């Protein structure tokens, strides 16, 4: 069975499972919107200030929302034993791990990208900045799923795993946050966001190449 077929089959299974538990997808989305709306309440309604903060706030909220749903990536399979069966399939683990991460991104990353413009408008971002925001999220959220998968795999089955994942993964998210929020800031201040977006793209390629191997090693360690 070629590798692409395995990934497609796994994607179908993951999306079917996500559809059966639509609640989980929505909770991530609601969390994203709520966190982003908290900042104006905390900082005050001054439009000029909010416009400056807009990109950063949306990015931080997206980062926290993506991290919230990391636990689901392997934990439910580990609990009911299907993860062991996946490890014992003939296909190389890197293949189905990439499938799993892609499925996690589709379920928790893409909804954030779709909702982000609405929040951007709420913060008074202009048309061009909104476009850069969406594009930076498009490049950034897969990296959040990729790096997050390492944290999820390492903390499999640990009590208090949720908090631990955030401690492990947040420092590694910082470059993505800097370049993502920086892109929006660059677009708004007229400096142009090409540099940030290309660096973000670079990190995406690097993460796509390296993290599945790290996740495979982490799973082998955690399943023993």
């Amino acid at each position, binding site marked *: 069975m070629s590798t692409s077929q395995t990934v497609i089959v796994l994607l179908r299974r993951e999306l079917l499972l996500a559809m059966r538990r639509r609640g989980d997808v929505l909770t991530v989305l609601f969390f994203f919107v709520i966190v982003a709306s908290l900042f104006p309440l905390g900082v005050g309604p001054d439009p000029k200030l909010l416009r400056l903060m807009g990109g950063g706030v949306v990015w931080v909220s997206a980062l926290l929302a993506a991290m919230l749903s990391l636990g689901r990536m392997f934990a439910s399979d580990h609990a009911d034993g299907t993860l062991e069966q996946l490890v014992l399939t003939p296909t190389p683990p890197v293949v189905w791990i990439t499938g799993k991460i892609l499925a996690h991104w589709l379920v928790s990353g893409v909804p954030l990208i779709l909702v982000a413009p609405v929040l951007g408008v709420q913060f008074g971002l202009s048309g061009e900045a909104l476009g850069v925001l969406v594009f930076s999220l498009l490049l950034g959220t897969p990296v959040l799923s990729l790096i997050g998968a390492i944290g999820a795999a390492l903390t499999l089955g640990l*009590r*208090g795993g949720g908090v631990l994942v955030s401690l492990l993964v947040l*420092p*590694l998210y910082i470059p993505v946050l*800097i370049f993502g929020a920086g892109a929006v800031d660059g677009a708004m201040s007229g400096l142009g966001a090409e540099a940030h977006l290309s660096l973000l793209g670079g990190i995406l390629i690097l993460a796509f190449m390296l993290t599945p191997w*790290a996740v495979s090693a982490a799973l082998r360690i*955690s399943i023993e």
Partner: protein
Amino acid sequence: MINRFNKYRYASPATFYHFAGRLIPWFYGAAALFCVAGLYIGLFLAPTDFQQSEAYRIIFIHVPAAWMSMFIYVVMACWAALGLAFNTRMSFMMASALAPTGAMLTFVSLWTGALWGKPTWGAWWVWDARLTSELILFFLYLGFMALQSAIDDPRRADRAGALIALVGVVNVPIIYFSVRWWNTLHQGASVSMTKAPSMASIMLVGMLVMALAAWMYTIAAALSRARCIILERERNAQWVAQMLEADA
């Protein structure tokens, strides 16, 4: 049958345990010696800096601590890589033994950085590229130690810690680059520690001696913590029983 097997497998921790036991006093001694020499140079020989007068003397603690915090993380990652590659439990124990000392030195460099920033730039915390990266490095240390303490099975704790240390060390340059990029963009580098006071040679010597002191101290602390970890892990082993009877 079990005992013969243990003797073979536990040979290396046993020899390391006694070998380290003899070395530790020497390293503590060397650390104290270098520290006294370094402080003497830093506080008595080094001239007053015309810009910052006496406040700059904090660099004799801040800079060596910052160097060491980065150096220890890299050494930790090396032990981790060795452990994963050759499946040697001793390497994992060394990595776990280094982490707390590295975290402590990172905190020292953050604390002294803040105390140095206040008189020099008027703010306790300066979002300078190096200080911010140091703060992130502190989080990486905390993540390593939190992960290791959250896992009960020593074998899994070692390997999981080793992996996060390796992932961390790959990310440290990326983080450092992105923070510098972020710092230069937002503040135009007006307030930044990169313009350290002009390095009179005596100051550099002082810092190098203090760095040596920190290095000796780290080795001593890590070796003694490693011995504790060995004792806890190998308490079922034959050589521990013999050693304790010999002492009793």
